[in-house]
């Protein structure tokens, strides 16, 4: 077995949490159940990975199998990577029958016609997701297996999710190969990035609860229940304001869970407007700012601002438009009272 392949397998196993190694090796299916039985999973990871490498030697693993193991790890730990979203455009309206074998062939051919030193691996998952792993080399160097690109493509949609971790110079080739293989003619990067691949899918596939006006016979949902005590002299302060905020939040965010994004970034190039009594800056040029919101769950966080008294309700459309505009990077320029984002 090629020693670089052995080392790559060893390092891939080392990345895995100890109690998940067996499961991932089983998913991999390259080592037989009998071989897996011989492994001692109670020793330190260093030793486990060495034993795995020895078994791979017995089976003469090559880089294709090693890459397959890497896909399995990255599919489970997809949220460790940063994903960008790309949208493809078709020229015609025809719905073509998608042939996975054809797709793979065309993809490989396009990439290899420009660059011989690549490792390309595919894996299909039940949710119609095709995972592609590409390790890039140069005309003179073998592919760097430690910095592959990952592409996730749902064939029934025009969306591609890419996690690059590579030189930008390979991106155009990757995009071209995707277009050729999938029969689209144009691809553009959307202003949408996150670690949570599923949330990105939720947003572009519109799988989250949207702000539909649903008819509810009761005026209020949970959260604003009438107090149990019978003393009608006790009323909630600002009760009607709280109700209004709650209702607006429901309208804007919907009542289901929000897609999970970690940040939103706004490049502001708007004019600074001083308050009525303030004798301050009145330049003709924009007041240039960069605002970044971060949270473990940004949309839930924003949703809770008005009820907490931190923000006005309704919240600014700059924030509430994130899911349905499918973007979390914005450039805002002045346009009378509203904003223009290119």
């Amino acid at each position, binding site marked *: 077995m090629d020693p670089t392949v052995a080392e790559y397998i060893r390092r891939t196993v080392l990345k895995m949490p100890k109690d998940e190694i067996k499961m991932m090796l089983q998913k991999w299916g390259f080592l037989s159940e009998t071989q897996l039985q011989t492994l001692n999973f109670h020793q330190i990871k260093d030793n486990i990975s060495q034993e795995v490498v020895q078994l791979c030697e017995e089976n003469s693993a090559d880089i294709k199998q090693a890459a397959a193991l890497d896909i399995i790890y990255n599919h489970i730990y997809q949220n460790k990577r940063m994903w960008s979203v790309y949208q493809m455009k078709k020229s015609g309206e025809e719905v073509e029958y998608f042939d996975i074998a054809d797709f793979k062939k065309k993809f490989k051919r396009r990439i290899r016609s420009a660059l011989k030193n690549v490792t390309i691996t595919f894996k299909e998952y039940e949710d119609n997701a095709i995972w592609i792993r590409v390790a890039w080399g140069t005309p003179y160097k073998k592919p760097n297996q430690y910095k592959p690109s990952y592409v996730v493509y749902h064939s029934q949609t025009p969306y591609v999710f890419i996690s690059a971790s590579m030189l930008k110079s390979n991106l155009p080739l990757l995009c071209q190969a995707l277009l050729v293989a999938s029969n689209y003619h144009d691809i553009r990067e959307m202003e949408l990035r996150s670690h949570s691949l599923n949330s990105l899918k939720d947003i572009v596939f519109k799988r989250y609860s949207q702000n539909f006006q649903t008819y509810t016979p009761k005026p209020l949902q949970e959260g604003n229940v009438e107090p149990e005590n019978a003393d009608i002299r006790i009323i909630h302060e600002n009760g009607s304001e709280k109700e209004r905020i709650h209702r607006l939040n429901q309208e804007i965010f919907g009542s289901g869970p929000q897609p999970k994004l970690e940040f939103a970034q*706004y490049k502001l190039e708007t004019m600074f407007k*001083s*308050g009525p009594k303030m004798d301050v*800056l009145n*330049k003709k040029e924009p*007041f240039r*700012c*960069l*605002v970044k919101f971060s949270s473990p769950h940004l949309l839930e966080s924003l949703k809770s601002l008005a009820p907490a008294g931190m923000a*006005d309700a309704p919240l600014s459309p700059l924030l509430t438009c994130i899911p349905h505009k499918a973007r979390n990077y914005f450039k805002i320029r002045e346009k009378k009272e509203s904003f223009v984002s290119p």
Partner: protein
Amino acid sequence: ENADPQKTAFVLRKAWTLYSVTPLYRFRRSRLSEYARLLSAFIAAEKQKGLAVEVGVELDIKVALSSLADLRGSELDQAALLVQLSSRSRASSKNSEDKLVWSGWFCSMFGDDLSENVPENFTCLPLFLTHGAESYTSLVGSWFQKTFDCCFRRLAISPLNLSWMVAMWAGYKLERAASAVELVFSVPRLSQPLDISYAIHPEDAKALWDTVQKTPGEITQGEVDVFMDCLCAHFHRHFKIHLSAAKLVKVSTGIASAHCDGIVKILHSQHLPGVLMLLTELAISQIQ
């Protein structure tokens, strides 16, 4: 104030954790090498007791104490006192160099408010800055406390003081490629915590400050308030969020940055005295 840049270079571009220190009783400048030996022995003894600072590696800690005459505001200030802990692994050869593992320095920059009022045997160096493992800070602090009967306290920086810093620093003359004036707010008590970074182009922040500040060389609380209100108003116009209700936790400019937990980083020697003066003032308020 014209400090030799070489001597003060160690201060720049490092994150320093801040403490206030009460005056040191019977501290003698002439006995620095003796103190260094005593501190060294103390650290070795603590390690023997099992309070190991470095697990698995056998390290000898060497202590060096020095005075920095340049780091002070006026003649009324005490010269700064620098403590450095270096290690040399016992495993390596005698020729290997010592590695600096921890530094801390005591300083007073225009700290007359405090030194005016203390009796003779006391030395005032109210600001203590450390860089390195917390465990070493603890050891050094304990020894100083025992030896000079002083008291250390972490110096937190309030949002009020952070806003003074950002207003002041935003107004300084700009370098060519100055970095943004950034304010970081935190909204912790939500169901999901939210951090907001608000970074303003340094030219625009300075332009705003210049129209707010009425007398050059002088800053009033009112002016700082107006500056902050303007920034919050601009933010509110876009996002409908009340930044004034959030907690200002960090400010950062091309001059320096400061975090509410009492951590600062100073980037230019030119502004070192100004920043240290502000920090000395904060330390003194915490002591009094």
